[in-house]
């Protein structure tokens, strides 16, 4: 049967680990062979853990704000290309390239860009006579999360752009021409014609970005390691730290965090699905 090998891999390396993590979350696992059953203790602890709440708060802010920014930026860039600005071919490549870079490269690069002494942000501010605005972008707890989010936007805007562009090209051109004939201004055209027609794609992009942000790990790990003072800690980095970096020697507690977050993500996805299906029904 054609499905067997794939299902075997799936069962061994996806389904079994998920179940094992759920199982582990009820135990304290100080070393590989000795696990003690602790019931729901870990879960109670998770909800009392201030660091978990900080991480959850940061991840929530990120997941709610960033997808909007991603999609809006992507749509605007796509519209520029769709309107055939000069050098569109070059611009498409320039705007898309960040998508291809690995988080490690992106992270190190932006740590340099935000460097207090010679990072281009501060150098440019000083050159403009705004030296007072120069900041230690990644070590100020009030700014760090925003700075990392901006880097994430830098990487993902190009992806949203190519998807929006593909969707724009698949729109029936008659509709846009009709809007043109009706002397519709470009802003009105955008709000009343283009956005409604692209809605399924935009919503999809939003949900994809939302799921992506709920999992953010690499960029934070490279750029700030969750610091300063947990200002950029995300749930993913916190689970990693508790499992592999802290000297707590317990794989059970991070498993419990992972299970809690798994439930949260799945709940959100189901919620989105429901909301979207209802709207879709309203429309037709």
């Amino acid at each position, binding site marked *: 049967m054609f499905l067997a090998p794939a299902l075997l891999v799936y069962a061994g390396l*996806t389904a079994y680990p998920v179940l094992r*993590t759920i199982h582990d979350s009820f135990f304290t696992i100080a070393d590989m062979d000795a696990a003690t059953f602790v019931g729901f203790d870990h879960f109670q602890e998770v909800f009392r853990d201030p660091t978990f709440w900080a991480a959850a708060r940061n991840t929530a802010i990120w997941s709610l704000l960033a997808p909007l920014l991603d999609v809006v930026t992507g749509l605007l860039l796509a519209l520029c290309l769709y309107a055939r600005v000069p050098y569109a071919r070059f611009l498409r490549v320039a705007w898309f*390239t960040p998508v291809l870079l690995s988080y490690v490269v992106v992270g*190190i690069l932006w740590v340099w860009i935000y460097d207090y002494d010679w990072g281009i942000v501060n150098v440019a501010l000083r050159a403009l006579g705004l030296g007072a605005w120069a900041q230690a972008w990644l070590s100020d707890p009030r700014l760090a999360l925003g700075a990392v989010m901006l880097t994430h936007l830098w990487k993902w805007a190009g992806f949203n752009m190519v998807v929006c562009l593909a969707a724009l090209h698949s729109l029936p051109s008659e509709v846009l021409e009709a809007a043109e004939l009706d002397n519709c201004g470009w802003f009105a055209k955008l709000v009343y014609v283009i956005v409604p027609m692209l809605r399924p794609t935009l919503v999809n992009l939003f949900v994809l970005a939302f799921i992506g942000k709920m999992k953010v790990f690499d960029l934070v790990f490279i750029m700030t390691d969750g610091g300063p003072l947990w200002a950029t800690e995300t749930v*993913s980095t916190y689970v990693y730290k508790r499992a592999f970096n802290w000297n707590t020697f317990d794989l059970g507690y*991070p498993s419990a965090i*992972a299970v809690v977050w*798994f439930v949260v993500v799945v709940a959100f996805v189901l919620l989105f699905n429901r909301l979207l299906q209802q709207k879709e029904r309203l429309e037709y």
Partner: protein
Amino acid sequence: MAIIVLYTVYSALPFAWVGTLSLRSTSEISAAHFAWPEVWHWEKFRVAWVDSHFASYFWNSTLVVSAAVAIVTLLGAAAAHGLARYDFPGNRLIYFILFSSIVFPPQILLISLFQVLVGYNLYNSLIGLTLVYVSLQLPLTVYLLEGFFARIPQDLFDAAKIDRYSELAIFFRIVLPVGMPAIATTVILNFIQLWNEFLFAVVLISDDESSTLPVGIRHFMGDYFQDIGMLATGMMIAVLPVVIVYAFFSERLIQGMTAGAVK
């Protein structure tokens, strides 16, 4: 117009800047961080390749990623064919279960995969990492290929049956060749995603000798934090294969990326 220029500066300049850094020595860089390379130090690529571990990181990445992509393509294509062509009870259920794991947060797998691999002595081994990569990319591969395979006309299969092709022959001699465009798309997409993969690599590999490029760069950064010039050269080594793939197959790649998101 000004906004377009500004956005292009924001989007393209950082990477171009790393490009210049990769060709300048660290002392030149400390003297002036934003200058055009006066002497083009191409030899830095040779130094990074020979004197530090970038060659071994590069080959580890190449080995793991190409093996994983080959396996996941074959398994994924077989599964997609099974789901697209055969009607059996539970077909949609299996599809749904496979597909739903795309949204799983990785932590739910991470800790227990670590335990499983330690249990099978595959921790710190490239084989272990390859297997994990296969399982990571499997849902996306099946999802993309199933959509394409389902649109292959049934007539082709009926004709093959009349010619007494076996089920396996149908898969290898009809589905794979006809599905080549979609398969190429998933290969490119999987290649880029795995080439850049960091989280599982950093957890499942601890030896420097077995590190893939993203983890290796991270090691290098830990050891030689000040050596900006060399770090930039290493980053370019990691990025170049992806850029080359993109240069040759940009249309396919973008097709693959958009296939899931456009409705």
